[in-house]
């Protein structure tokens, strides 16, 4: 289980996370929703130690990762996989090399074993036969799927998804959500998805947390949040221009 306790994070004078606390249960898909620029990606980066909070604790399976040194933090990171917003594929490596990279660096598998595992992972995400292509030859959706294949390969216990469907057309968006749900059923990992794809994200998540002005203002099972009466949550879900969330000031 992952637990954020009173986490604060500021960039200069801008407070992004304000005494935020959140529990992410094991084995479930938790979606973190909220307007753009509210610090959802910052929250995700706290979970894996890519950014350190100014204060507060980030507890992963009982270990406060904010107190760990580089090597201990790396041991905790072995539990994680992450799919970045732009997939963050290594642009000088082919698709095959990208997906094979963690296996080559972290296991002692033979070339043949790596090859078969990579092909299996690519098949899982519906991308057979593109081994030789470079990331700049792929569409946005294909990049995300390659990123997902890479994240899944070492069978992590926890996978973080940073806006996995942003900028994709509705069909690919649905396909990616379906893929996340299917792979979750298959591998049973804990997932944290940062997204503002409403209402699609409700279809695949078990729990939802809404981030607004640096705080979690609503959190619970998907249906509870979907039917929330909180005015901010309501406005965000309905996509209404009228309400407490002011975009044009």
């Amino acid at each position, binding site marked *: 289980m992952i637990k954020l306790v009173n986490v604060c994070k500021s960039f200069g004078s801008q407070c992004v996370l304000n005494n935020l606390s959140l529990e992410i249960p094991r084995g479930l898909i938790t979606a973190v929703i909220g307007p753009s620029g509210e610090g959802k990606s910052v929250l995700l*980066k706290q979970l894996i*130690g890519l950014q350190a909070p100014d204060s507060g604790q980030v507890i992963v399976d009982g270990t406060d990762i904010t107190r760990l040194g580089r090597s201990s933090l*790396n*041991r905790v*990171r072995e539990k994680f996989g992450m799919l970045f917003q*732009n997939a963050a594929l*290594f642009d000088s490596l082919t698709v095959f090399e990208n997906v094979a990279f963690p296996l080559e*660096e*972290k296991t002692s598998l033979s070339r043949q074993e790596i090859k078969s595992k990579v092909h299996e992972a690519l098949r899982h995400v519906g991308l057979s036969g593109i081994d030789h292509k470079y990331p700049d030859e792929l569409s946005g959706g294909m990049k995300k799927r390659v990123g997902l294949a890479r994240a899944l390969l070492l069978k992590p216990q926890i996978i973080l998804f940073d806006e996995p469907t942003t900028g994709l057309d509705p069909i690919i968006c649905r396909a990616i959500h379906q893929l996340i749900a299917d792979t979750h059923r298959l591998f049973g990992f804990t997932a944290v998805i940062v997204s503002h794809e409403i209402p699609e994200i409700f279809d695949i998540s078990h729990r939802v947390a809404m981030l607004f002005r640096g705080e979690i203002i609503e959190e619970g099972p998907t249906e509870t949040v979907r039917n929330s009466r909180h005015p901010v949550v309501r406005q965000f879900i309905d996509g209404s221009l009228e309400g407490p969330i002011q975009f044009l000031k």
Partner: protein
Amino acid sequence: MGIRQPIQRLGGVTLAILRDMGRMLTFLLYALYTIARRPGRPIHILKQLHFIGAKSLFVICLTAAFTGMVLGLQGYYTLAKFGSEGMLGSAVALSLIRELGPVLTALMVTGRAGSAITAEIGIMKITEQIDALKTMALEPFKYLVSPKVIAAVIAVPLLCAVFDVVGIAGGYVVGVKLLGVNPGTYFFEMEKSVVAKDVISGFIKSLSFGLIISWVCCFKGYNAGHGAEGVSRATTAAVVMSSVSVLIWDYFLTSVLL
């Protein structure tokens, strides 16, 4: 009130410079620590050796040939004033081995490979590829910094040796073939005046220049700002800082090694 502001600004700038220097030193120490602990796979080092070393050969040979030829030309007419044309070989060789070889090699490597190193690491940073390495519980220094530092420290002295040889040949072509210096005298005087200390000092210089170039360029790339502009600024800063550092360090090393 009037005098407080400039003093505050000066203090702020001084603190910022000290902070940057501290960060650079920490970066170097961590890079050396990583090299000592886990230097990275040989294939990564070989790739960097190919990029920094083999791919710089052409530009090094070209620069060396013309530098040697200019030295031959200038040296001949200067020495002719004192009737010492026979010393041309030793003048060309000493200038190249002790000074011009290491410095010009370092400046060429900075321009050709150093800028590319900064741009590569900078782009990896802004596209979250470095974060991706971290999320895989891999140490980015092992993949991005160590192989480049090791390769630069090996490649720059080798390139410098090539520079010296080609430069001496360039001086030979101008001095002996065009201006009529006796070929035996050209090499005899060279052999007489160049001692092991000259070669060793050139080697030490080029070795340290390799470290400076890779250190500064990797650091600037790793700390590149936002977007394409951030990478372009980092690349420019890396080339300027590496070149200036090489020249300053050259002065201090020369004063110690002379």
